[in-house]
């Protein structure tokens, strides 16, 4: 482990700690007495319980649905398998607030825990489905067959033999789901389930009490750190296995229910909401002319920011991931956990913390694209850390050893062998971040250069005043443009036809 890597990882992780520093500064302004008083409020307790219950429920259901979908996609011979695989990735392209909105068009009465749980589950399931499907494609099917011949039924054999092989991928996906559920505000506010983020927004919005908002956000931080620590405990390392892939099952009779499992997320997370938006568009009596120039400008800004955010986030995540992949111990836990922080905080908190930071440190760059892109990196670094880390973990040490015997320095062999082989993992990270940036709203509103609009901000500006007709093209463009990286993420390019 080169020393410079540790230092670099620590520096990158400290970028993610900016919101934490900000929150501590704000919270300490309030003083300990206020802190204790606010924490003891039954309302805060209720919100915290709601947040925890919601995040756990969504994580559990995403794990179950995502693993089941991934199993069907990679183990069963299905007609149109490639299209199903693509469809399973598409919910990623739909912002959670848009999904909630689309559901409300059809079922205006739905609200509360179960509605939020369901819609959040279907939009988040791809975070589990995609990595697990990839892991299953790489997993040896022989193990499961052996377990069967040794007396385990199909489910128990899967659990005993295959689950350990895909567990790191599933748990990493579940972590993203869990943190996202903790930090999301758009969906729970539309579906009226009051979580801590609701409380944080209310503190900013009605009382302009930044200190109270900071205290609530700190509660969220504690929850997130608990989750990240727990994930580190249960994750385990991916274990190399060799052997034949499990042959595809030909379950003709069960095809319909099995395809049904795979389709739950794309239908409920994409089709129903998108048709809801279309319905509202058709309803609109006041047809507004689409301003193609604004649409194109917003599209270009969105793509540009997504690309820049993806590059920035992966670059900052790379040292942290490299360090976490190869080292163990307390320092690693601290550095990696810090890296995940941004993802657990609502965008408004991260946005305000960077306003604070930029004005204090680099006022020249305030309201420039640079600070905005940096904010994206802080927010979405966690999406990059996990996949990059597993990519690096998968590179056998023997390869770098060989490189060193061939005369490369430690650093050079890391760069030329490990980094190169981990590139697909890094690419997946970049795509995940790009999608998240495209959908991001609160931090963009706070930090964008004055006059710059993304598809998400344009969408927000129109739905806020009921202009659904005018909003629809931006919503459509957003979903379509985010579907492109989602399609790449589905892995259909990497999976040969005969493998499906």
């Amino acid at each position: 482990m080169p020393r410079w890597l540790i230092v670099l990882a620590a520096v990158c992780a400290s970028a993610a700690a900016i919101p934490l520093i900000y929150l501590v500064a704000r919270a300490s302004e309030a003083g300990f007495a206020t802190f204790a008083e606010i924490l003891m409020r039954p309302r805060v307790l209720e919100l915290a319980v709601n947040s925890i219950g919601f995040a756990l429920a969504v994580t559990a259901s995403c794990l179950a649905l995502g693993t089941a979908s991934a199993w069907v996609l990679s183990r069963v011979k299905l007609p149109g398998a490639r299209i199903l695989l693509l469809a399973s990735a598409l919910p990623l392209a739909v912002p959670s607030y848009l999904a909630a909105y689309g559901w409300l068009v059809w079922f205006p009465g739905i609200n509360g825990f179960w509605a939020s749980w369901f819609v959040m589950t279907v939009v988040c399931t791809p975070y589990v489905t995609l990595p697990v499907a990839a892991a299953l494609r790489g997993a040896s099917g022989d193990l499961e067959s052996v377990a069967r011949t040794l007396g385990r039924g199909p489910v128990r054999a899967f659990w005993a033999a295959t689950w350990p092989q895909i567990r790191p991928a599933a748990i990493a996906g579940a972590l993203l789901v869990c943190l996202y559920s903790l930090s999301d505000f758009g969906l729970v506010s539309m579906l009226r389930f009051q979580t801590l983020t609701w409380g944080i927004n209310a503190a900013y919005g009605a009382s302009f009490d930044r200190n109270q908002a900071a205290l609530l956000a700190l509660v969220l931080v504690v929850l997130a750190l608990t989750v990240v620590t727990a994930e580190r405990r249960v994750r385990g390392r991916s274990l190399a296995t060799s052997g034949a892939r499990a042959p595809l099952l030909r379950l003709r009779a069960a095809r319909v229910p099995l395809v049904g499992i795979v389709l739950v997320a794309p239908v409920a997370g994409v089709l129903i909401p998108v048709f809801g938006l279309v319905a509202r568009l058709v309803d609109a009596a006041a047809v507004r002319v689409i301003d193609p120039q604004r649409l194109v400008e917003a599209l270009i800004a969105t793509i540009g920011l997504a690309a820049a955010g993806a590059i920035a986030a992966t670059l900052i995540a790379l040292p942290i991931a490299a360090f976490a992949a190869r080292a163990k111990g307390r320092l690693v836990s601290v550095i990696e956990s810090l890296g995940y922080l941004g993802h657990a905080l609502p965008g408004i908190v991260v946005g305000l913390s960077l306003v604070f930071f930029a004005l204090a440190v680099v006022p020249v760059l305030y309201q420039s694209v640079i600070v905005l892109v940096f904010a994206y990196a802080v927010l979405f670094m966690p999406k990059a850390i996990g996949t990059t880390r597993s990519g690096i973990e998968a590179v056998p040490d023997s390869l770098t050893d060989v490189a060193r015997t061939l005369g490369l320095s430690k650093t050079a062999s890391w760069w030329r062998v490990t980094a190169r082989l981990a590139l697909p993992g890094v690419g997946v990270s970049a795509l995940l971040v790009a999608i998240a940036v495209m959908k991001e709203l609160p931090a963009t509103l706070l930090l964008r250069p004055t006059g710059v609009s993304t598809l998400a901000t344009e969408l927000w500006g129109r739905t806020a005043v009921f202009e659904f007709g005018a909003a629809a093209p931006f919503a459509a463009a957003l979903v379509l443009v985010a579907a492109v990286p989602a399609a790449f993420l589905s892995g259909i390019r990497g999976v040969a036809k005969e493998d499906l």
Partner: protein
Amino acid sequence: MRSTLAFTAAATAVLFTVTGCATSAEPGPDGMTSDNSFTLYSGRAESLVQPLIDLFEDETGITVDVRYGDTPEMGALLLEEGDRTPAAVFLSQDGGALGALSAAGLFTTLPDDVTSVVADGFTSTDDTWVGVTGRARVIAYDSEKLSADAVPTTVDAFALPEWSGRLGIAPSNASFQAFVTAYRVLKGEEAADAWVAAVAANKPQIFENNNAVLAAVNDGVVETGLLNHYYWFRQAAETGAENMRAQLSYPEVGDPGAIVNVSGAGILATAATDADALEFVRFLVSTAAQEYFVAETFEYPLTTGMAAPAGLPAIESLVNPDLDLADLESLEITQQLLSKHGLI
């Protein structure tokens, strides 16, 4: 793509020319300076105010750089920026945000000719900001489930058990809190406490904002909702008034449910000598701008002598001039009250 680039280049060139000419401006006799541009933070939506800003730019030649956002976020942003803010003017959706910024000492005092045109009760008490438009608190009801005469004429009715589960509110929203503050001021703390307790016990449906309350009433999810009138007109403009399932009922004269919430504008202390910013705020309370709001956003004009939009009750019948819509301390008491009964 090419045309976009060309456009951007042209726009940049124009911008440079404008600012280049303008920077030579000297401080005027009143100590004010002008560079023919300023930055506006707008907590009101672009489609509502941009046409008005375009009009201002055309008339004055002053360039307005507008940053749009939700009022709460813009307020939080301005508080965070403090004296480093690039903004000269803040246009707010509600009085609460203006009061918070005023209390933080971020606003400069506006000249008399700006503040005097708006009647007391619709603007700041210390001249740090000025009211621009008014939105009446109304009761929206589901016209398929309720006839117009079955809708309560006073918000006190919602404290009765028969309205259990039939009311939608957005208690964390500034407009609702302003209304509860009005209730406290008008009816006294005890009555307010009893009302909030009874409403909370009635298990109202909780929404995040006025938009969501209206959508729920319009979709038949909840029978009645408390909100600002103008959301209804916004949606009616989009989907057609004849398609609106939700209808509005105005509480009787003197009812605390019949107050007016205001949107307003203030000049940041950092732009105290910015003549362009002042000109803009002055423009907002001009007849032209007030007429624009009446016609385009269906809001009450606040300058004296202007008529309300057609079909709305006269503003005089709704107003309560004893209120300070931006009184932070009073707002805090309201929030404690709501918090005590578990509504926020």
